[in-house]
């Protein structure tokens, strides 16, 4: 039988030291066995490396920043789609998801572009400022956390949860504080960069384990691979990791997907304590940058998600290879200034 060919647009081409997931998603799609693919890259900045990776990305278009709003985004897609006829879109940044979730139905009905995303309720409920309540509701251990709006609130919380504690930004960044002075200093830095509120979270001792997976929107986990980071950069990003054999973690993941009826890709971040307790510390509503490991483990989750969107029958992955490792590397591409000029001035390459 002839394989279908899909045109798939992908954001997150910033394959830098704190990488977006775009290139990993594209590599997974290129290795899909059930369809062929033309990749349309969507970039925000002219120096996102993926723009110039022509063996992976067939054509790139600049798209407006999320702050430009949905109407501007829709108009830009109307233009791109008139040339490319996009079948499926993979948004890969947390910050752009709000717009894409809001505009999902319109994209599908007016442009014929499908997406697999969590619902607005799912997206909001798992937000780190709501995660403690979310965990309570779904029977999952989450470290106690409280939102604060001023440094004056920190001493009272610290007497409740003790030190060390974690100071977290609304969208990004987390720092460990060992004293009230340090917590207040972290608060000032994080609030200056990411705004208010800032989250003060109980510190859980243990090792971090993550799960990359996909939910079908009806409570079924279509795929899930647990991984532990083996090497972490100064930005806290995994530079190497290994897939784990962790039944309990998979069970927690499946229970969470069943309870929340999660739709689309996700990354769950847990702290595993020495007595084998798991504390959920974050839910990312998109594929992580290490999602290509799942392909190496035998679960091409990006391919499965596209097939799910295309109403193909997708059988949940039951197994994966344990002990598969990934290691990132840096690589200098040499290119002509002309290419940089073209994406910078015309917004297409």
């Amino acid at each position, binding site marked *: 039988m002839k394989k279908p060919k899909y045109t798939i647009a992908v954001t997150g081409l910033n394959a830098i030291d704190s990488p977006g997931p775009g290139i990993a998603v594209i590599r997974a799609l290129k290795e899909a066995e059930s369809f062929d693919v033309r990749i349309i890259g969507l970039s925000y900045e002219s120096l996102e490396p993926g723009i110039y990776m022509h063996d992976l990305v067939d054509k790139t278009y600049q798209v407006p920043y999320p702050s430009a709003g949905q109407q501007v985004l829709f108009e830009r897609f109307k233009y791109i789609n008139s040339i490319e006829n996009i079948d499926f879109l993979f948004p890969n940044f947390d910050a752009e998801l709000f717009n894409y979730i809001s505009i999902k139905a319109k994209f599908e009905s007016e442009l014929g572009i499908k997406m697999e995303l969590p619902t607005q309720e799912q997206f909001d409920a798992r937000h780190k400022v709501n995660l403690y309540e979310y965990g309570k509701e779904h029977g999952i251990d989450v470290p106690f956390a409280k939102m604060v709006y001023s440094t004056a609130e920190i001493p009272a919380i610290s007497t409740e949860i003790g030190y060390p504690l974690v100071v977290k930004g609304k969208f990004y960044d987390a720092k460990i504080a060992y004293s009230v002075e340090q917590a207040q200093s972290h608060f000032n830095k994080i609030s200056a960069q990411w705004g208010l509120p800032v989250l003060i979270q109980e510190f859980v001792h243990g*090792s971090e*384990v993550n799960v990359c997976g996909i939910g079908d929107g009806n409570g079924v986990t279509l795929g899930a691979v647990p*991984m*532990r980071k*083996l090497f972490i950069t100064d930005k806290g990003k995994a530079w190497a*990791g*290994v897939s*784990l*054999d*962790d039944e309990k973690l998979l069970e927690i993941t499946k229970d969470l997907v069943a309870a929340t009826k999660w739709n689309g890709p996700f990354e769950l971040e847990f702290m595993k304590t020495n007595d084998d307790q798991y504390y959920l510390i974050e839910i990312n509503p998109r594929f992580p940058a290490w999602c290509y490991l799942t392909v190496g483990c035998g679960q091409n989750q990006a391919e499965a998600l596209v097939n799910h969107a295309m109403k193909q029958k997708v059988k949940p992955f039951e197994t994966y290879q*344990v*002990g598969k490792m990934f290691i990132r590397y840096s690589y200098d591409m040499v290119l002509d200034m002309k290419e940089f000029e073209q994406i910078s001035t015309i917004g297409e390459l």
Partner: protein
Amino acid sequence: MKVRKNIAISDSGFLFNPTTGDSYSVNPIGQEILQLLQDEKSEEEIMEHIAKNYMIDKDTVEKDLYDFLNMLQNYQLIV
């Protein structure tokens, strides 16, 4: 004491714990002790084996063996 059943031990003495993702290297004697544990030998039998094959007195073997077993236990490699 037994080696946890999912621990992978290669011929080169490389150990991988697939539950935690940790990996270790042991020297040939460490590897031999792990093999004996996998063969379900008792601590007494392991001590005798090492003392006999390496011509070391049993007291020294006992001290070193328990140090090694404690370490394996701390790393959750044996139960």
